[in-house]
């Protein structure tokens, strides 16, 4: 494993190093002394493995493609935002907007994720070991958000086609989100997501939340005046 030390080189130099790699490079790297720096390992497009050894700031692994990035610590806002493919793991906690607008790939957060986790997601999968904050999966269009803990209020507000699975308590659903019956395909999907993580839960413990689709067509009769 090759080391890149942020105590000795800048985030700019580190990202440029990754951007200069061949798109088929499969090497493994570790980034030392992140010390809360923002924008580490953004815009990666190679099947490399990157370990960030410590806490990191905002937008870590943003717009990731192909790479497998593991943060051995906590992260700030918008980890793995707009991810296209690959895997991003947070061994600690994640702040707001984790996995926002992601198109693909898998984001795993071992601890809690703060508010707006999975906001605007477009096909990515997110698995949170702990709880998520309010307004998670707001306007989420496609993909899966699996929450092993509790979900704060406003969950799934204005959902489109994304599906949310919650093991713990739901403190409140957002506009047009509703709890639905778990089907066999849901148990299969939950199991599939759990198998990609280290979480060992029974899929039967999870509830399904999806869009009631009353806001799909603009109408005076839809609940557009809903408040939290």
């Amino acid at each position, binding site marked *: 494993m090759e080391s890149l030390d942020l105590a000795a080189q800048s985030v700019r130099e580190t990202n440029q190093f990754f951007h200069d790699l061949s798109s088929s490079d499969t090497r493994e790297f570790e980034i030392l002394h992140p010390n809360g720096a923002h924008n580490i390992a953004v815009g990666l497009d190679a099947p490399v493995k990157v370990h960030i050894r410590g806490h990191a*700031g*905002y937008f870590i692994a943003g717009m990731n493609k192909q790479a497998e990035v593991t943060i051995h610590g906590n992260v700030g*806002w918008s980890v793995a*935002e707009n991810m296209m493919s690959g895997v991003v793991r947070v061994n600690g906690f994640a702040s707001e907007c984790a996995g926002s607008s992601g*198109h693909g790939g898998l984001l795993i957060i071992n601890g809690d994720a703060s508010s707006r986790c999975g906001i*605007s997601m477009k096909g990515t999968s997110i698995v949170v070991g702990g709880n998520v904050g309010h307004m998670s999966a707001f306007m989420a269009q*496609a993909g899966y958000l699996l929450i092993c803990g509790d979900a704060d209020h406003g969950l799934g507000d204005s959902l489109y086609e994304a599906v949310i699975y919650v093991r713990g308590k739901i403190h409140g659903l957002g506009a047009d989100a509703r709890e639905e019956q778990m089907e066999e395909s849901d148990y299969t999907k939950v199991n599939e997501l759990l198998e990609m993580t280290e979480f060992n839960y029974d899929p039967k413990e999870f509830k399904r939340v999806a869009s009631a689709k009353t806001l799909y067509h603009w109408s005076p009769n839809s609940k557009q005046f809903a408040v939290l």
Partner: protein
Amino acid sequence: MNSNQSREESFSYNQKILNYIYQAAETGVYDIRGLGAKRHLPTFDDLVFLTASMSRYPLEGYREKCETKTVLGTRHAKKPIELDIPITIAGMSFGALSANVKEAIGRAATEMGTSTTTGDGGMTQEERQSSKILVYQVLPSRYGFNPDDLRKADAIEIVVGQGAKPGGGGMLLGLKVGERVAEMRTLPEGIDQRSACRHPDWTGPDDLAIKILELREITDWEIPIYVKIGATRVKDDVKLAVKSGADVVVVDGMQGGTAATQETFIEHAGIPTLPAVRLAVEALQEIDMFGKVQLILSGGIRTGADAAKALALGADAVSLGQAVLMALGCNSPHYVDGDENVDVTSEYQALETTPGYCHHCHTGRCPVGVTTQLPDLEKRMQPEWGARRLTNYLRTVTMEMTTLARACGNSNVHHLEREDLVALTVEAAAMAKLPLAGTDWIPGEKKL
């Protein structure tokens, strides 16, 4: 009561307001429409140039050279944008507009050496291929947004707000969400689609500063980053955009257009372009960034005179949206099929409007094929014809601008200055902080 009083229309409850109340009472919904504000507003028409005579020396009409080259994004980017003219094309989405229109715009912009801009829904292959200089928008919805297209862009525009609907998100009603649009936006076909009004991954200027750094990192600091705001609290917003790291600030006044939003937004939110440009320039001057961060002005720029006045007031470039659509036939009574003008007045009537008054972009049933996704309508605006029309229009606007610049004694349109302008109305004088014509009075200014 005498007969005159019985026929007196109420100012507060006139026929327009009565119709609004009747419709609201009948339907329970507000009006959604396209284009921009229709109400009377102070505009650049309320300003005139003090062209040269004895005290200034003019340049010869269309003969002497008048430079129009424009450079944007010099603050941080390795590759600033270099334009042949200071007139750019505003962001308009594939979805709101047809693929033919996007291609026509790209071809005309390339012919004129200027930039065009993507829009909600992402970048189409056609517009990337047809546009030599393409600005890629980062919008709150992030529909179709991806790092591959980001790296293909020549500049990035982070859209915080839009003049037609500052503080509001976009709308694309179901008829326009066809198969291709739905796929690009990862949405079910045919639904009424809402674009978010706030970004998913940042909320305030301190977060935006980090977001801008992320975009710079991903593009290796090569291309400029614009921040676009709808004109409301212009001074604060321009300063915050600059603080966040913008290379270019785009200020869009309330006359700016939209594909669809609530009418109450279009007519009652934001401030006109005229005071917006003055406030934006003052903001840049107050933080010593005037000339270091470039300013693009948009919102109701229609003519070379408008563009010249915007530059005289301190803008580095202007951006056109609605006027571009009109050059392509928007609101025309006919479309062109070969050598034939095909009258479509009856189709306007089916939309309960008439040529010259239409704002039904939101319906997707544009009779001249500009704001539609329906194949039968889209083919009415062919890219080659549209590119020729738009090139002609942009060329005319540029020539008018240089004509006025020369008449003011300038060999470069960027040398136009505030001192070349006076106002025709008290309102325009107050908003632009220019003297009322024939006086040295600037409303609101204290004389020393």
